[in-house]
């Protein structure tokens, strides 16, 4: 039993260091992506199309609903404490700094994380990855890097749209239920929104984008031979992505307030 435990610990440590090494290699390839003459530009374009453009609808609906709920709740509750203007601060904390990036990460993780993991898993099983290697293409730089860059860029763009829908679009939704002056609302938003909020939100999205994409790519490549491993890779990718995003969110928020 002790031997098994030791073996498991050694295997776990080896896997952990492999994952760390993989992470840095993928991130390095992603960072250098635009410096190289890319045959994988199409992969990047398609990744942004699937991850960003096609997720815009879901993201917009969530942002609109969330923003509208905050506006309605805030405009009913906060004036009772004489803190009406706090609504804008809450709206910005939720939409721009906290839930916006996190929900965007969840959307992307659920849609694209699974897609990337299963797609790469399928490619491994059908020897397509080996086919890339055989012609001289590094799967990390050709398959992983454009996906990481694509997902991260999509996350950033989706976060901007989430903010726009959450802060502006939700006003229109809330207006249907509770009349709020346009000038008052946007004056309040403009006064409460700072560059730090925007940068903080975008930074989180950047980190979440890398986490979601690298986790998905790692899980996809971890498939070995059997097609039954593919759905498992998808599930592990989503689960790992969620956990790591929430952990990263906590760490980033902690750093911000420290």
């Amino acid at each position, binding site marked *: 039993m002790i031997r098994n435990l030791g073996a498991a610990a050694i295997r776990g440590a080896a896997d952990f260091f492999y994952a760390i090494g993989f992470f840095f290699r993928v991130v390095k390839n992603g960072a250098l992506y635009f410096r190289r003459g890319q045959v994988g530009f199409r992969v990047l374009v398609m990744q942004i*199309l699937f991850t960003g453009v096609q997720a815009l609808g879901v993201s917009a609906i969530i942002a609109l609903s969330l923003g509208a709920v905050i506006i309605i709740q805030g405009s009913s509750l906060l004036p009772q404490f004489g803190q009406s203007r706090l609504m804008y601060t809450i709206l910005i904390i939720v939409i721009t700094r906290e839930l916006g990036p996190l929900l965007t990460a969840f959307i992307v993780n659920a849609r694209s994380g699974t897609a990337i993991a299963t797609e790469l898993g399928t490619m491994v099983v059908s020897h397509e990855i080996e086919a890339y290697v055989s012609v001289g293409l590094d799967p990390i730089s050709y398959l992983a890097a454009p996906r990481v860059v694509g997902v991260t860029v999509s996350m950033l763009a989706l976060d901007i*749209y989430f903010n*726009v829908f959450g802060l502006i679009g939700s006003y229109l939704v809330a207006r249907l239920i509770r009349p709020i002056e346009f000038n008052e609302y946007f004056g309040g938003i*403009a006064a409460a929104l700072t*560059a730090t909020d925007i940068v903080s939100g975008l930074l989180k999205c950047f980190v979440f984008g890398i986490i979601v994409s690298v986790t998905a790519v790692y899980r996809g490549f971890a498939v070995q031979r059997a097609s039954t491993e593919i759905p498992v890779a998808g599930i592990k990718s989503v689960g790992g992505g969620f956990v790591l995003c929430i952990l990263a969110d906590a760490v980033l928020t902690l750093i911000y307030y420290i």
Partner: protein
Amino acid sequence: MKFSIRHAESVVGGFILLAAALLCGILVMVGANQRWFARNYYFHSRFQSGAGISPGTGITLKGFTVGKISKIVLNDNNTVDADFFIFDSYIGKVRKNSVLELATSPLGLGGGLLFYPGKDAERLPEHSYIPSMDFEDGKSIVERELADVPPRDDTLTRLLANINPLVDNINKTVVNVNKTVTTLNGALKGDGETEVGRIVKGIGSTVRGVNGTVADLDSTVAIVKTELPGLVERSNALLDSLKAISGNLEQTTAAMRDPTGLVPKLLDPKGSLKTLLDDNGVLFAKIDAMLSDTDKTIKNVESMTDTLKSSMPEITSLLAEGKTTLIQTQDVLEGLKNNPLLKGGIPERKTQEAAQPGYRDEDF
């Protein structure tokens, strides 16, 4: 093939460009709101203490933020050097003999940095020293009236000005009540030519007075939500008036309680107590209640006076209680007016009657 896949590059390009444009738009909006692109003019000053100011504290001129503190440093002389900037839109106000005042609220609600422009037409160059009223140079400017310092029309003064007519109104009403009760007292004593009708009329006007007072109190409550130490003094005067009323009412009660006294005689030539209590003792009971209510009012006002000094926010609730008591007093007086002996019972109070009663309200 789907449109978005066939034109993937265009769609993705549009998606990213629009996001970048929106981000730029948001940043420009935030920047404009936070004056990233506006020119600031820097000056410096000195204060005795840095309490109440910090980098970012706004500098106000007649309620408008005209600049902000950028840096404060405790210098070797244990005074505070402050660097601040004035927004470009207000730079014309920074003239020779301008002064700064670090105002601290006596109520402990924080202070503010007030800017008073000099009366001189000459504009001060950037990086000039602008004295504060903490030091002689600043005080001297103000004493010589070289700076445009407005009269001390602070919030408290304005509130006191608002409350004055209201307190006068209350006083008037109290005097009215007092007069009425005195008259009633006289009547009950059997003072010559005094007639019950006059009493009733007097009570009627008193009721209206109290009504007005109640309405006034509503607005008073709203205003007194902010601190109003001056009210203490006036409340004391009010208390004196109410004590006088109480004295009068006590006499009335004493007179009424005497079954062989003047009251029964006045009300019933036969002097029968039974006649007096023909309405099942409503009149008696109500007058009694009136006395206790008035007594309660006095106690409330007394406690109000005490509490005012220490806890200002409680004024609101105290006045609300005072209002309730006055309403009860109004009921009592109304009852007195409508007593079966005099007219006919205490009407049931309706909280908010429509000016034009509906058909449903009519008796069939």
